[in-house]
């Protein structure tokens, strides 16, 4: 097997310089400055991290962040998978239409979409009024200013991020493979679990991980649709930065978020067979 020499493999990396310089100056330098505050302010040391882990409230905030991100990922996958499948299966023109609708929702202003959910979900909102008029419920359901609202709003926003990679993966699957499966005697069910799903794996993983990581850092939607009880890490950071000027603690929390994201990103790369750290098979 021919293995290119190191210098050969890294040839052309000089073209990375402009991007590296840009990122270094405008992203890494400020990021490092920010993270340093976590150990320097108000007094040098690990006091901020100690505070972050010792206080049960902050642990709760962290827990909220993860459970919301996890729930949103689960729901987006459950809703996004059939959608992506439908887009792949329907006749071509229709598939493009469906895809365009998904994209259109992604291009609309986030704030406008979040407020529309508020209008739909609130106690005197469209959904509650309709349900009450139909006599299905007597008192309005509480669907906003709590966890339900956040999960509904965020899942909706995240669905495109799962549909796009999944659809691309499904599109690339050769239908003959499935046919071969059924010819060999697999029931549709077995065919789905043993053939189709494993082939979707890369799209499913990249989509789900992207949604999970994005959800960890989401601010606007939880701030508007959530109740104060379900505070998530980004909202906590904003509170510390803007209201209390407690940048040390905020930066420690931000560092935690960055660290978690990096770990997840590493796992993601590990799972992608073609990445440099992946388990090549």
């Amino acid at each position, binding site marked *: 097997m021919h293995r290119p020499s190191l210098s050969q493999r890294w040839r052309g990396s000089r073209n990375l310089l402009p991007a590296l310089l840009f990122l270094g100056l405008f992203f890494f330098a400020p990021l490092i400055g920010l993270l340093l505050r976590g150990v320097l302010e108000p007094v040098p040391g690990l006091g901020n991290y100690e505070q972050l882990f010792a*206080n*049960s*409230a*902050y642990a*709760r*905030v962290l827990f*909220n962040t993860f459970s919301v991100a996890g729930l949103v990922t689960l729901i987006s996958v459950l809703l996004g998978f059939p959608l992506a499948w439908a887009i792949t299966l329907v006749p071509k023109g229709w598939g493009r239409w469906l895809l365009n609708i998904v994209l259109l929702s992604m291009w609309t202003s986030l704030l406008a979409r979040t407020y529309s959910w508020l209008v739909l979900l*609130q*106690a*005197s909102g469209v959904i509650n009024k309709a349900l009450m008029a139909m006599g299905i419920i007597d008192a309005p359901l509480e669907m906003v*200013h709590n966890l339900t609202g956040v999960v509904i709003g965020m899942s909706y926003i995240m669905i495109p991020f799962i549909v796009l990679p999944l659809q691309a993966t499904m599109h690339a699957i050769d239908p003959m493979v499935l046919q071969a499966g059924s010819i060999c005697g697999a029931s549709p069910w077995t065919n789905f679990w043993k053939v189709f799903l494993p082939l979707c794996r890369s799209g499913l993983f990249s989509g789900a991980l992207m949604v999970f990581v994005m959800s960890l850092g989401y601010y606007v939607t939880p*701030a508007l649709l959530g*109740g*104060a*009880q*379900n*505070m998530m890490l980004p909202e*906590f950071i904003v*509170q510390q*930065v*803007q*209201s*209390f*000027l*407690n*940048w040390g603690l905020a930066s420690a929390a931000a560092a935690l978020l960055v660290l978690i994201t990096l770990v997840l990103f590493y796992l993601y790369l590990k799972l992608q067979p073609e990445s440099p750290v992946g388990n090549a098979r």
Partner: protein
Amino acid sequence: MLLSKRVTAVLSASLLTLACQASQAADSLNFVSWGGTTQDAQKQAWAEPFSKASNIKVVQDGPTDYGKLKAMVESGNVQWDVVDVEADFALRAAAEGLLEPLDFNTIQRERIDPRFVSDHGVGSFFFSFVLGYNEGKLGANKPVDWSALFDTKTYPGKRALYKWPSPGVLELALLADGVAPDKLYPLDLDRAFNKLDTIKKDIVWWGGGAQSQQLLASGEASLGQFWNGRVYALQQDGAPVGVSWKQNLVMADFLVIPKGAKNKDAAMKFLANAASAKGQAEFANLTAYAPVNLDSVSQLKPELASNLPTAYAQDQVTLDFAYWAKNGQAIAARWNEWLVK
């Protein structure tokens, strides 16, 4: 020779630009506030007359962001000259050395209500947290004071309270629990949170004025704690909204000058004008926020005067900004802990 000529030309050109910048700087200042109708009114009542009289241009900027203010002062590149901030923040920022001391030769301190002036800030306006309620939801059952918030039998429905750990919510809980107004401070946090626990599931939190109005007018919340100007605006629009001024809780905004502001002198003049009897009265007439200048009251529109906190000085409780400036951080930690519990 040619080269030196060119160098001189470049030099003088750059000097000229510098000079232009300097003179431009002296003739303008940046005013930062919260946006919306409040800032529009500040522009109309303060900035425009001020520019006309002094020839100093006032550039509107915003919204107020405490984090940004701190970052500017720390980096030494201060773009903001006058900033509208909450009273407790004004005192805290002064203690942290983020603000310029004010020049009380330019600003007339004597005629400003002493509650709303400090060495580093002068009142922008003041307002009250009042008990607002939706008449359609509560019918003839009119709530009187803060204890109504904790009586879910007589007054069913959601309670709208201010979301941030800042002066107001804890005080009203203690007042409702029977603490005398002059015994409020230092706040008995355990008692306040215990009281709030009794209605925790009935609270819907609001983070801004527009949101609070939406909650109250739609009946999403039957009653709650609101900024008086916002309830007044709803009433003007004909919404079925009532208000009780009993135990109204006074809070204020201050105007401050960040340390190292580039147009400090112009900013001082601006503050003197904004805090003057006329500036304060005009702003109040536009917004239904109350004037901090004691001489403004006589210049208020008669139909408005009865809707301002100035008319309800009896049975009024002024929130202790200084106490919050000192203890806000510790209270916030407790507050978060209680919220997510």
